[in-house]
C-alpha cells in the first residue's frame, strides 16, 4: 500500500515563490509585467501550478527566462511566443482561441444559448391561458354572486 497523498508534497512548494526579493527586477513596472505573465504560464513539471506560485527549480528557471526577456525589451506576446515555440501550448494556462479550441471557449455559451432556445420554443408551443376578458370577469362575478346569494 502506498502512503497517502503522494502528490501533496508538491503543495508545500507552493509558496508564492515569485515574490522572492533575490529574483526581483530593478524596474517596478517591468517586475509587475513579469508577475502578470508568470500567472499565465504553467510550471511544466508541477501539477497545474503557475510559475508564479511554484517553488520548483524549473519554475525558477522559467521565471528567469521571462524576466530576462522583459529586460531585453520583448513584448508580452513575444515572450509567450518564445515559450510556446519551445514547450508547446501546454505551457500556457489560458488556452489560445484557435479553431481547435473553439469548442472549449464557445461550448458553455452555446449550451446556454441552446437552453434559451428551448425555453423560447416552450413559450411558442404553449401560450399560457389568456387572462379573463372584461366580459368574462363580469360573468364570473355574477356567478360568484349567485353562489353567495
Amino acid at each position: 500500500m502506498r502512503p497517502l497523498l503522494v502528490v501533496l508534497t508538491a503543495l508545500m512548494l507552493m509558496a508564492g515563490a515569485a515574490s522572492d526579493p533575490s529574483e526581483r527586477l530593478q524596474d517596478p513596472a517591468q517586475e509587475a509585467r513579469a508577475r502578470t505573465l508568470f500567472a499565465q504560464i504553467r510550471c511544466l513539471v508541477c501539477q497545474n501550478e503557475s510559475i508564479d506560485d511554484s517553488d520548483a527549480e524549473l519554475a525558477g528557471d522559467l521565471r528567469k527566462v521571462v524576466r530576462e526577456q522583459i529586460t531585453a525589451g520583448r513584448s508580452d506576446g513575444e515572450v509567450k511566443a518564445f515559450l510556446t515555440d519551445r514547450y508547446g501550448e501546454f505551457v500556457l494556462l489560458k488556452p489560445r482561441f484557435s479553431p481547435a479550441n473553439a469548442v472549449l471557449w464557445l461550448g458553455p455559451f452555446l449550451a446556454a444559448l441552446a437552453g434559451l432556445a428551448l425555453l423560447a420554443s416552450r413559450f411558442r408551443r404553449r401560450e399560457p391561458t389568456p387572462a379573463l376578458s372584461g366580459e368574462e370577469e363580469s360573468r364570473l362575478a355574477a356567478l360568484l354572486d349567485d353562489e353567495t346569494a
Partner: protein
Amino acid sequence: MTVELGAFALALALALSLAQTVLGLIGGRRPTLAGAGEGAAIGAFLGVAVAFAALLTAFITSDFSVANVASNSHTAKPLLYKLAGTWGSHEGSMLLWCLILTGYGAAVAGFGKGLPAGLKSRALGVQGLLGVLFLAYTVLASNPLARLASPPIEGRSLNPLLQDPALAFHPPFLYLGYVGFSVVFSFAVAALIEGRVDAAWARWVRPWTLAAWSFLTIGIALGSFWAYYELGWGGWWFWDPVENASFMPWLIGAALLHSAIVTEKRGALSGWTLFLALAAFTFSMLGAFLVRSGVLTSVHAFAVDPTRGVLLLSILGVSSGAAFALFAWRSPALAPGGVFAPASRESLIVLNNILLTAATGAVLFGTLYPLIYEAFAGAPITVGPPYFNLVFGVLMGLAMLILPFGPLTAWKRGNVVDSAAQLRLAGAIAVLVGFLIFALMSPRKALASGGVALGAWVIAGAASEIVQRTRAFKAPWPEVRRRLTGLPRGSWGMTLAHAGLGLFILGACFETSWKVEAAEALSIGGQVRLGAFELTLKSVGTVDGPNYIAERGQLTVTRGGKPVCAPAPERRFYPAGKQSTSEVALCNLGFSQVYTVLGERRAAVGGGPAWLVRAYYNPWVQLIYLGPLLMALGGLLSLSDRRLRFAVGSKP
C-alpha cells in the same frame, strides 16, 4: 479483535444492503416487505457504524497492526489528528462515504414517516443498491481494516499539512454534501419507476437537497479556508481538478434547489428537476472517480491507483447509466407541468438554471478538456485558472444580474417592469458603489469595480425583497413588525443565502484585485513596507511542539508608527515525515487581514542571519468565508421551516 469485529460488521452491512435493495424494490408493490427493507437499511447503517468505530478505535490506540493506521498515523500526533486520520486516507474516506450513504438511507427509513409507502420503499431499494455498490467496493477493493503481517513499531504519520482543524472537519462536511445527493438520486429513480413526479415529490426531495447543499457549502469553504492559511501565500481557489470535482455537484445542487421550488409550487419543470436530481449525485460520483483514479493531474489527489479508478468508473457507469436510461425511457410520459408566461418567476428560475448548468458545463469541460484534446490532437494542453475565471465569471455574472428579479417577480405571470421599479434603489446603490470603488481604489480597476457593483446589487436586491414584503418605510411600524415576524423561515433563508452570495462576490473582488504583497529578507530589527503598514522583525526563537520543532518569528505591524498587531508566524519541521511547513500568522482588521509568513533563513548582506519574510494585505478577505457561511446558514434555516420538514408535507 475490535478490528475483526469491524470487518465482520462491514461484510454484514453489505449483505444487509443487498437485502434492503431486494426488499425495498419488491416492497414498492408488496407493502408487507417494505418494513423489512426499512429494518435492513437501519441495520446496514449500524453495521458500517461498527466498522467505522473499529477503525476509529484503531487510530486512537495507534494499533499499527492495521495497515491503514500504520501508513497514516503516528503515536506523537495530537488526538484530533489521530481521529481525523480515520478519514485522511483513501480507504478510510471510502468507509466514511459508506457510513454517510447508509446513514442517509437509515434517515429516510427512520424519519420519512409521512412518505407514501411505495415511493419510500422504492427509494430505499435504490439507496440500498448504491450501498451495495460502494460497500462491495470498500470490502473487496479497499479494505480499511486490513491487518499487516508484521506491524511496524511506529506509524508513518499523516502529512503535516493535513494536521489542521479546518481540514480535520473538511471531509465529513464534504461527504455529508456529496453523499446527501444520493437520497435525491434515489427519490428520482423511485419516481421514475413509479412514473409519477408531482408537487408532493418535489416537496419531499427539497429538504434533502437543502441539507446536502448546505453541508457541501461548508465543506468546500473549509477546504478553501485551509488552503488560504496553510499553503502560505493566501490563495483560496485554484480551479484544480479536485476542487472542480467538489464544485460541480455544488452548482448542480444549487440549480436543483431552485428548479425543485418550481416543481413544488407550480408543478412545472418536473422532468428537468428529475434530471438535475440524477445529475447531482452523478457529479458526486464523478468527483470521487477523478480524485482517486489519477486520470487528471491535481495538486491534491489521493494515492493514485488505476484499478480503483476503473472500479469507481464502473460504479458510476452502472448506477448513473441505468438511472439516465430509465429517465430517457420514462420521462416523456411524465405529465407536463403548469404553464407560465415569459415574464414570470418560473422563467427567471429557468434562466438561473440555464446559466448554472452552462457554468457547470464550463467547469466540467475545462477540467476534462486536456484529456480530450490529448486523445485527439496528441499534444498536451493546459486549461488553467485564466480560462475558468473568464468563462465561469461571464456566465455567473449574468446570473447575478438577474438574481434580484427572481424573488420579486410573481409566479405564472409577472411584470418585469414592476420588479425593476421595486429594484430602482438597489440598482442605484449598486451603480453608486461601483463608481465610488472605481474612483477611490488604487490602482484603478474597471472590471473589479463592476464586480463589486454586482455584489452590492445582489445584497441590495435581497434587502429590497424583505423591504417589499414587509412594506417597510411605507406601512406603520406595528404592521411592518407583524409582517417581519410573519415571514416564513424559508423566506429568510433565501434572503440570507442570496446576501451571502453577494458578500462572497465583494470579498472575492476585493481580495483578488487589491491585494498587496511584500517580501524581503529581514535581519532582526529589519523593516519592510506593506501598503499602508510597516512590518518589523523583532526576534526569531525556537519552539518545541507536540510532534514538531519550529522557528517562530515575532513581527510587529504598525501603521504610521502606531502599533496595529504583533503576528508570530512559524516555520515548522516534522521529524516523523521529515517535512517542513510554514504556519502563517494573521491579523484581523475588520474584514481585511494582514497575512504574514516566515520563510527560510538566509545570509544578510552584512553577513548576519536574515529570514525571508513575506506578507500580504488581503482586503475584505473574510467575506470570502463569511459569504458561504451565510449561504449554508440560509440553507439550514430554510430546512428548519416547518413547511419543509422532512415529509411533513405529505400529511393530508
